[in-house]
């Protein structure tokens, strides 16, 4: 009897191994289809203009030209765009990360009047389409003279990010409230409680959220294109887009592709390094809804 069982499970595992192989091959084909456009983007950034526009189809550069990346990196607009994106990201992530985690701690662990009302108000903003507020925001920023600077992209972020507050608050529900009571008995101030107990507890989740926020800032196109009027302050994505319309005229597609590769690279590297944490936090937000 026992032997029989063993045999059947062995046969089964052989059969399931074949199925596994088939599934793997099918999924691999799908994955190749998914990344093929991106691979083509990288390859064509090494091609000559003539090869891209040639009638017969080819994907391997012939000859390989590596000069386009140097050309892109030497463009002042490109470097300026990179600088502007980083000028936006740095204060937003540091200060916005601080205000978001402080709010999350307060919403999760402190008792104060109006807590639920304020929290619901914040959550409701996640439902409001950006299209509703973009016109008034644009007028507001114009009236304040901010459209000649990066302030429209920086200032709103300093006040925190609702989805991060929501996520961190969820994250803190697993921490027992009794810690707060114990800290109070020790005469610990509320800010110190945040700084020395809860911030360290949130550290991992906060870092993941900040990485995602950085990706959001890096990839953002809509807000910069609406709010920033002065070319001097265009962020990288806006610059990439203007490259596209500017250099397509003389069909310099290798240059456009090289610039696009550079625009994707940082977020891609971040994703590869931190994918375990990123995927985990995305899965949590999806399952908990």
């Amino acid at each position, binding site marked *: 009897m026992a032997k029989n069982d063993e045999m059947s499970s062995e046969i089964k595992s052989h059969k399931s191994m074949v199925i596994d192989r088939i599934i793997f091959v099918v*999924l691999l084909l799908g994955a190749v289809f998914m990344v093929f456009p991106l691979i083509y*983007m990288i390859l064509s950034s090494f091609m000559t203009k003539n090869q891209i526009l040639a009638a017969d189809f080819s994907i391997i550069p012939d000859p390989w030209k590596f000069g386009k990346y140097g050309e892109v990196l030497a463009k002042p607009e490109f470097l300026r765009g990179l600088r502007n994106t980083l000028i936006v990201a740095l204060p937003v992530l540091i200060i916005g990360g601080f205000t978001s985690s402080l709010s999350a701690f307060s919403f999760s662990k402190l008792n104060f009047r109006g807590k639920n009302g304020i929290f619901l108000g914040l959550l409701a903003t996640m439902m409001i389409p950006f*299209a509703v507020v973009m016109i008034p925001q644009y007028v507001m920023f114009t009236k304040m003279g901010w459209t000649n600077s990066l302030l429209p992209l920086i200032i709103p972020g300093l006040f925190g990010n609702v989805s991060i507050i929501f996520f961190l608050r969820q994250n803190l529900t697993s921490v027992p409230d009794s810690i707060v009571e114990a800290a109070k008995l020790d005469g610990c101030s*509320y800010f110190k409680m945040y700084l020395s107990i809860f911030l360290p507890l949130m550290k991992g989740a906060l870092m993941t959220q900040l990485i995602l926020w950085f990706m959001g800032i890096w*990839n953002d196109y809509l807000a910069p294109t609406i709010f920033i009027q002065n070319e001097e302050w265009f962020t990288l994505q806006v610059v990439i887009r203007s490259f596209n319309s500017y250099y397509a005229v003389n069909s310099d597609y290798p240059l456009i592709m090289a610039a696009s590769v550079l625009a994707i690279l940082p977020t891609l590297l971040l994703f590869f390094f931190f*994918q375990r944490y990123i995927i985990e936090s995305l899965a949590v937000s999806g399952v908990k*809804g």
Partner: protein
Amino acid sequence: MSGGKAKEITKKKMNKAEFKEHCWGLAFVSPAFIGFLVFMAFPIVFAFFASLTKWNGMNSMMDNFVGLNNYIKLFADAKFWKVLLNTVIYMIGIPIGMILGLVIAVGMNRKIKGIKFLRTLYYVPVVSSLVAVAILWMWVFNYDYGLLNSIIKHVTGVHGPNWLGDEFWVKISMIIFMVWKGLGSSIILYLSGLQGIPRDLYEAAKIDGSSGWNLFRHITVPLVSPVTFYLLITGLIGGFQVFVEVLVMVPSGGLNYSAATVVFYLYDKAFGSNQMGYGSAMAFILAIFIFIVTAINFKGQDKWVKTIQ
């Protein structure tokens, strides 16, 4: 807060310690709350008033008050209905992405060597810059030299369609692009949903003689329904707001405006011809559509969304 008022609150309900906690609690959430008031609540109220005027961003709102005229005009605006229809057509991508995502996730939910790497590959488009990949796909869809038409020509010998220049194909192109961009996140969410299904449910059903397809239909699909629900809600909310991909790939809005979406038209009106009042009215109608569709979904969820007991 003034001392007199503070004393009053203290007397009424809170003791000193509770009051202290109240103040600190409020202080800690105040940045987020002030941000909410200044950058969300105020603009929403402002946009509503603007939607009742013929405001162009410069003139006085009060002098150009037109009541509900913008809304009435909007419902008679054939272009608005056209972009709304386009927006809804793009939503065909939502179920396509869900079905592909679930099927791929089921395949990935097995212990196979190297499967994690594949998962990463499927996710790459999600983290890639929307502008950069839209530029890339613009090139893929290029009529004369694009990757897609080159392949079609190479394989069949016939010239492929004018993807972005044709009223019909431009919609197909946008749907392909959006499914490609978002597929990875559906897969990740379905995978985490699948991992929450207890193994013994399948074992029990297998003993009862259920086949693979029946297992999928009667166990997998119902038990990942919370994920499906989440994808549907976020897909619809995002679907109503599709804009940047169109702006980058078809800056003109397409032949006869065939690629334009509601937000594209709104942007065009508000920032292209300074019709800020009209644009605001459109934004409000959009918000109401989103609200109604989301509410209907939440109402209907009891009928099909199951939870694992």
